[in-house]
């Protein structure tokens, strides 16, 4: 069975500082990994994905994520946080052993960037 853990309910960071939102996963075989962001009363917005290749993936709005197979992690990072980055962030995984596209999400991490 696939699962995702986001160990932090909330991450607080000052504007201009680097941010990290943690994600670990469990899946049979190699994973597809995704990060989504959700603003209040909105749907999920795609940020980035890891499919194969370079372990450092770059995405929208200056976000990037590092895939670490040995630690089964896919942490989201940004070198310099903005107040507008404050939102709810979800990590998601799906296995490669099926052609179907069910995503399994974590419980989400609320990012709060203070001015």
């Amino acid at each position, binding site marked *: 069975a696939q699962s995702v853990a986001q160990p932090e309910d909330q991450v607080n960071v000052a504007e201009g500082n680097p941010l990290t939102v943690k994600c670990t996963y469990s899946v049979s075989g190699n994973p597809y990994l*995704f990060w989504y962001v959700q603003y209040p009363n*909105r749907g999920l917005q*795609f940020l980035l*994905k890891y499919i194969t290749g370079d372990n450092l993936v770059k995405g929208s709005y200056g976000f990037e994520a590092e895939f670490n197979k040995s630690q089964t992690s896919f942490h989201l990072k940004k070198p310099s946080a903005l107040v507008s980055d404050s939102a709810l962030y979800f990590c998601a995984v799906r296995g490669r052993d099926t052609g*179907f596209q*069910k*995503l399994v999400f974590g419980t*989400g991490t609320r990012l709060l960037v203070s001015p």
Partner: protein
Amino acid sequence: DAGVTQSPTHLIKTRGQQVTLRCSPKSGHDTVSWYQQALGQGPQFIFQYYEEEERQRGNFPDRFSGHQFPNYSSELNVNALLLGDSALYLCASSLGTSGRRVGYEQYFGPGTRLTVT
């Protein structure tokens, strides 16, 4: 280029009633997935439609059913509503699973907020 659209935006129903939610996928997409997001939780997979057939289903009872039309749009139907069905229902679209197209991200609509009283 229109993204994923959902209707209605909000809906209030009474226990025992039935509800139909609608979704139009992003232009060029042929696969629609439905997710339920309860308050404070991550989205939970309900089912996925491709080529007008249900291809995969999550751990939801038969009260939850769906349909995909030839134009790729989709409906989610929930019968005999329970208070616990109150949630944000998200539709996501993507390219189909033809073997060569796995790994594509899903694009989500704004959701339908269902309240069951």
